[in-house]
Structures are given as structure tokens and as C-alpha cells.
């Protein structure tokens, strides 16, 4: 196991992220909603930079009690999107939204004083 320096906490504000080259791995480190998340930067689809795309909330269909369709909205669930082809992943878990059997490797993020590290 090794710890890789990500950033000073003050330099990784809420909503920001970093890509850490950790030996042969690349890890995307997100600071979002007061928490840190870290995932492999290699998409489960074709190896694209999965952590380098947009963050966007999950789209949901609005279906009424009578089962009629009433439009769409965004839910509170945050996704990050591989910019190559649009594969979406849950920020909280790294699971692939289109096939929840697939997920990105998750890494632990630790804070030591003012420093943020990712553990591989």
C-alpha cells in the first residue's frame, strides 16, 4: 500500500477534483458535498478517462400514480460521466448506472493535517 499526495486541503475546494498518477494507475479524486471520493480513471467501457468528464445529476422520469408520464427532472443523485462516450457512474459508489454489475475501482482518501492523500 502507498499513499499518494493529492493536494493541500485548501487547494482542493468543494466541487474541485484532481487526477493523480499513482504509479501505473490513474485515480480521480473528487471533493463533493463535503466528502472525498476516489476512483480509477479508466472507464469500464473502453478505457476512457472516466473521472475527467462532467458531473451531472441523475435524470429521472416522472411517472404519476396512474402510471402516466409527466416529464423528467434531475434527482439529488450525482453522477460523473466519462467524456469519451457518456458512461455514467454514481459519485457515491462508482457503480456504472447502465449496468450496476460494473463499477470503477474505489480508493480510500485520507486527510493528514492539511494534506489529502489517496491510498493505492
Amino acid at each position, binding site marked *: 500500500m502507498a499513499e499518494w499526495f493529492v493536494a493541500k486541503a485548501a487547494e482542493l475546494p468543494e466541487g474541485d477534483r484532481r*487526477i493523480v498518477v499513482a504509479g501505473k494507475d490513474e485515480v480521480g479524486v473528487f471533493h463533493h458535498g463535503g466528502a472525498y471520493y476516489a476512483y480509477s480513471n479508466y472507464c469500464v467501457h473502453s478505457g476512457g478517462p472516466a473521472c475527467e468528464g*462532467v458531473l451531472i445529476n441523475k435524470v429521472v422520469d416522472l411517472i404519476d400514480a396512474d402510471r402516466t408520464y409527466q416529464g423528467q427532472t434531475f434527482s439529488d443523485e450525482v453522477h460523473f460521466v466519462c467524456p469519451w462516450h457518456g458512461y455514467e457512474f454514481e459519485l457515491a459508489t462508482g457503480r456504472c448506472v447502465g449496468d450496476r454489475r460494473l463499477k470503477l475501482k474505489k480508493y480510500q482518501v485520507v486527510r493528514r493535517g492539511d494534506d489529502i492523500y489517496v491510498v493505492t
Partner: protein
Amino acid sequence: MDTVPSEVRKLNFDDYSTAKHLEHAAAQARARNFQDFLIVDVDAHHYENESYKEVFQYIESPVIRHDVIDSSQRPGRSAMINASVGNQNLGGRITRANLRRLQKVPADGRHRDIAMTLEWMDAMGVDYACMFPTPMLFLGLHPQVEIEVALCRAYNRWLCERILAVEPRLVSMLYIPFNDPEAAYKTVKDFGDCKGVVGFMVTSPRYRPVHDNAYMKTYALLEEMGKPISFHAAYSWEDRALQMTNRFISVHSLGFMWFNMIHMTNWVVNGLPERFPKLKVLWIESGLTWAYSLMQRLDHSYMMRTSDCPSLRRKPSEYMREMYFSSQPMEKPDDPSILEATFRMINAETQLLWSSDYPHWDFDLPGVIYDLPFLSETAKRNILGANAARVFGLDAKVVKRIP
């Protein structure tokens, strides 16, 4: 636990570099030794609308040129060129679509189109790419046939003079203005010998049947020249049947098969493979499952209805198996034996040509072919480059520079 120095990158959405965007593709290309063999992309795109100012200068009719240039100054409003409704870039999720305008290219005199294209080709490990337009894929639906003819000719002239004549790694199957059969014939006549023209392409969304007698002299000319004809798929949300779909995934999934299934059916049932036995026919961007399905459907009915297609001397699938197919967007069923059967069905080792469709949203890397466990190394190299080199008559020399 060891603490080790790390390389950390900040993400910057105010900057864009194709090489950076495709860094993982280049790593894949290096890991798979793509530098060692030829890779040809038979379906790649540029955004010709980014060069419209140049293209429009090639419009020969002074009236159409004036009107098109005038209308282009009011984007989003009534225009002379038809556009397609559709959320191709997933609401901004495909970031390169918007960020590519930020790309800086070397000030070495090369056309921006060439510089940007060579950059992604090198990253993927592609030696030669067959370029096609993007918005003009829908030009076959333009209500004014003379606009299709005028723009097609202007685009072809621009492409030949400004791109193909300059950059030997770029080739094209030129757009045929299929809604005007005489103009289609003239296009093949006028451009068939231009540098980098390796064939001719019909955009599939349109409503002219391929078996119309008016096209026979064009097919004969192509056959005589040894140049392939291709049908490049696209969708149309204005098609009566596809109008019933309400999401882009639906119109795209169906539309990119729909028009090619119709053209293929007409092509085979009317005996065109018997009339033009040496004409090479290539079907582009419909994936593979449509051919697998249509072969079985037509064969099944053919045995009961041979009188509907008396020109045929063999089953429809036997003719289809002698045609060529581009690979993208290559379906990947969970059960790989289904894909393996599809490859057998179309004689993939000799008839399948890899394509990326880059930079469009559903592009494929060469790895979609190279990583298939059921293909031999020879079959992989055929599909990735050797088949296309044979069909297009390309020099098989490896010229890329993978970063």
C-alpha cells in the same frame, strides 16, 4: 504505509487538446503494438461546417452561393441548409463536442482540419482515415434537389483541393448527390481520378430507391473504375415511422439501421449484384446486427418467393456476404458467441473494415477488434487495415506516429 511523490493534474474545462483527451487511447495503441501494422479507419468525420466559409466559395451558382452565404449569417434561424434535430452530444456529457473549438493547432500552414484529424489518428494508431462530412449527412433530405447538388459539388471540390490534395494520410469516398441521378453520374466522372478519392458515398437517409434505372450508368462507371460505392447511415426524425420515437436513443438506434436495411433489400432483391458483379459495395455505420438479421429474413422469404426476385441465382445472404461492412458502432452482446456468429455470418475476416466514427459520440477504438478473443492475429490485422487497403487500393505502409 509509504508516502510517495505523485503527479497531480487539475482539470481545466477552459482548455482542450485532442492528444490529452485521447491519452488513454495512445496508451492502448502502444500496449497493443499498433505501430507494427497498418490501421485504416474507413469512417471518420470532420465538422465541415467549421469550414463553411471556405466551402461556400466553391458553390458554382452565383445565386445559390449568395443565398447560402447570406443565410449562414443567421445561425439558428431560417437557413438554406437543412439541419437535423437530435441531441447527439448527450446534453454536454460528450465534452469534446463543445471544447474542440478551444484546440490550438500548430501555426505551420496546415489546414486546421488536417492538423486536428492527424492528432486523433496518431493517438489511436490510425495510418489512413476516410473522411466524411457531419451536417451534410442529412443533405439528402433537403427539399431542394439543386441545393444538394450545389453544396455537394462545392464540398467535394473544397475537400479535394484543400484537404486530400495536401495530406496523403486522408482519403475520402466522395458524396454523391443521389437525388439527381445525372449529377450523381457527373460527380463520379469529374472527381473519380482526384487524389485521395477512393470511392463514392451515398448518404442513406433519403427517399430514392437504389434500383431506379437512372442509376445504372453510375454503377457501371464505378464498376469500370474499380471504385467502391458506400451507403453511409444516419437517422431522420422526419421519417414517418421514426416520428413515433420520442428519444434520441430510439431514433438513432433504429434510424442508422433502417435506411440501410431498405437500400440493401432493394439492392439485393432487384439483382444489382448480378448486374454489377465486380462493383464493390460497402455499408457504413449501421453496426453488424442488422446484416445478421436481414440475411436470415431475406433468405427465409426468398425460398418461398423466388419469383419476386428472378434475377437472383443464389440466396440473398450469399450476395450480402460478398459485400463490405464497416464495424462501428460495433455491438458487444454479453454472450460473445453471438458476436462470433455475426462475424462468421458476414465473412468478417475478409469483408469487415474497422471504423472509428471519431469524433462522434459513439466512436470505437481499434481495440474493439484487436481485443476480440476469437480472432486470429491475421484476422485482426485484416479487419483493422489490410481489408480496407485492398478495397481502396492504398499503400500498406505504416506512417503513423503514436505519441
